[in-house]
């Protein structure tokens, strides 16, 4: 029988299947961070259980950690307790690798997993974080779980799961200069909606996907969850293999050769059946900007804020009205006329080296616009930060008036001190523009790193294709 990539990943991890189709699935990699794990370890302890396989665990502190003044430690006592609790749990129960606060390799869990070669093709990867879908860029089955499931995986190395349906998103053509994986993700969500992928595992394929770096592929798979799909994934090709070669936890020597030969089978069989297919023309894509409070509320940079008067469906009209009120926007405003107050370049969606390079290219030799109170770059990990500094990118940002911060989740969800104040408008490379996501009353516009950088120097959104022409 012809299988999709998802079918192959699922089938190779089924421990048993119940009569109703529910599967018990073996988990290879368990990523842990401080916010969703304390209650799981507590539950484990109360039940007098031990982790099944500590070698599957890779942990870091990322959500609560500050991005400035690391010499002062974590000043918020509640945040500090959560990070300390992770320290204690890892110390008590063990792990394969732990990158604590202040470690030079610490960073956003979804950046460091692939960066360390700790997520590999063919694996099942879980984490108590919905953006675990990111890792699917390396042809693994990766998805977010809740804290009860974190405890379940700790105790049993397995998850009770229903198999998802298969969706293929095919992106053909060629992306224009200044158009990136983020624009594909936003355009897709605009097309199928935030529940369009519910119940599906999405495989991304087509010439545009093949042309993306692993970093770009991660951006795309990262936002599968914003389309409602818990998992996104991309087949193994030479790009995948070249990316992994030599990484810390990637196999070495004979095992590497053996692994690569297996990994090359991790692609959908030609002719395999998908339950749903969606196509996008990459050549026609333009930079995207969200205008509302859901990632599906998105338009191209040449577009306008929608007019609820033109929406016939009453519940959708009400949704638009609510979003415009929250966002402080008038119907029919051109996106290029929307002034911003803050710029955030970072998050598990867009904080990798190529994201920082493209943003630096846009701001090089320019200055942050006077109306922009704060523009910041938060690298995804200590290693990304170091590499960017070796390339001199930090100096470009600082010269332009940006703040160059320490790694972490930062203003993507504002659990630390990095946040929007009520009414502030932000061009953000993160993944969610929900009400209050970046701070109570804050207004988020999701964009690519190039678009965030160009908005920072222009003061309003601007079509970055006017700046990047090659």
């Amino acid at each position: 029988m012809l299988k999709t990539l998802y079918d192959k990943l699922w089938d190779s991890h089924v421990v048993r299947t119940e009569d109703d189709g529910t599967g018990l699935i073996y988990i290879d990699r368990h990523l842990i961070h401080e916010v969703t794990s304390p209650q799981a370890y507590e539950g484990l302890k109360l039940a007098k259980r031990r982790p099944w396989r500590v070698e599957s665990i890779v942990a870091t502190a990322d959500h609560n950690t500050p991005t400035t003044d690391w010499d002062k430690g974590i000043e918020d006592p509640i945040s500090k307790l959560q990070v300390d609790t992770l320290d204690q749990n890892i110390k008590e129960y063990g792990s394969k690798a732990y990158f604590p606060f202040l470690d030079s390799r610490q960073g956003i869990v979804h950046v460091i997993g692939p960066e360390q070669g700790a997520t590999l093709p063919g694996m099942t990867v879980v984490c108590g974080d919905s953006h675990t879908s990111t890792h699917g860029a390396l042809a693994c089955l990766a998805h977010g779980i809740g804290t009860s499931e974190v405890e379940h995986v700790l105790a049993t190395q397995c998850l009770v799961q229903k198999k998802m349906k298969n969706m293929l998103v095919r992106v053909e053509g060629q992306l224009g200069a200044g158009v990136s994986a983020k624009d594909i993700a936003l355009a897709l969500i605009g097309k199928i909606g935030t529940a369009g992928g519910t119940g599906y595992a999405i495989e991304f394929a087509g010439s545009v996907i093949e042309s993306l770096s692993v970093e770009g592929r991660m951006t795309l798979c990262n936002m599968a969850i914003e389309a409602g799909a818990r998992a996104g994934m991309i087949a193994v090709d030479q790009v995948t293999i070249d990316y992994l070669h030599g990484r810390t936890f990637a196999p070495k020597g004979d095992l590497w050769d053996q692994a690569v030969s297996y990994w090359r089978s991790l692609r959908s069989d030609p002719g395999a059946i998908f339950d749903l297919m969606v196509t996008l023309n990459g050549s026609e894509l333009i930079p995207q900007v969200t205008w509302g409070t859901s990632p599906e509320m998105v338009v191209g940079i040449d577009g306008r804020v929608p007019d609820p008067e033109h929406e016939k469906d009453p519940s959708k009209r009400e949704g638009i009205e609510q979003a415009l009120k929250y966002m402080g926007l008038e119907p029919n405003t051109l996106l290029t006329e929307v002034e911003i107050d803050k710029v955030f370049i970072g998050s598990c969606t867009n904080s990798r080296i190529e994201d920082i390079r493209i943003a630096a290219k846009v701001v090089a030799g320019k200055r942050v616009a006077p109306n922009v109170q704060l523009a910041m770059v938060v690298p995804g990990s200590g290693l990304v930060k170091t590499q960017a500094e070796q390339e001199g990118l930090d100096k470009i940002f600082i010269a332009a008036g940006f703040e160059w911060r320490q790694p972490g989740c930062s203003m993507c969800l504002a659990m630390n001190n990095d946040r929007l104040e009520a009414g502030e408008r932000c061009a953000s490379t993160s993944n969610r523009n929900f009400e209050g996501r970046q701070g109570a009353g804050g207004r988020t516009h999701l964009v690519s790193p190039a678009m965030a950088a160009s908005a920072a120097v222009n003061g309003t959104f601007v079509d970055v294709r006017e700046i990047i022409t090659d």
Partner: protein
Amino acid sequence: MEKFALHKGLVAPLDRANIDTDAIIPKQFLKSIKRSGFGVNLFDAWRFLDVGQPGVSINQRRPNPNFILNEPRYQGASILLARKNFGCGSSREHAPWALADYGFKAVIAPSFGEIFFNNSLKNGLLPIVLSGIEVDALFHDVLGFPGFQLIVDLENQRVVTETNGKSFNFQIDPFRKHCLLNGLDDIGLTLERVDEIKKFEEQHKLNQPWLFS
């Protein structure tokens, strides 16, 4: 987990699509290392006019009189009625913890975010999928009849209106239903399969040894 018995309760309508888990429980409350105490901050940014901070007593807060759950007629509600894609976004299990802690036993909507759906089932909070038309009808009833109650009959997989006996059937995985009805611990059940897991693990190690190196 407590057994999910036949439940009769007051219904509260939250007429909004795509309610995300950030709205259900904002990020500042995720810093807790406990599973309990999240109910006072359920829908915090909508329920209160001031910005909530962990540890601040509810008596010191300014309730938003325009938020539906603050209306006197919905006090004590235990069944939440919502629109499509309820619980989308972040995987935070703090969302079902907050709903359950507030006093909700069930949420009825045309669709749910998948991770939220799973998380709810593990906390004795029943997510019930009804069709858009059925949900419309319930919104109509709950707004029209103060004190509107529903009976959630998990055993027979149906929701019944108390007043006129209208009945709506819903689907649920047999395994999940069994766990909820009997208050069973998932982990305990999986650990009954220890031998099978070990056997799988040995074979997996042979197939992909690099995963264990």
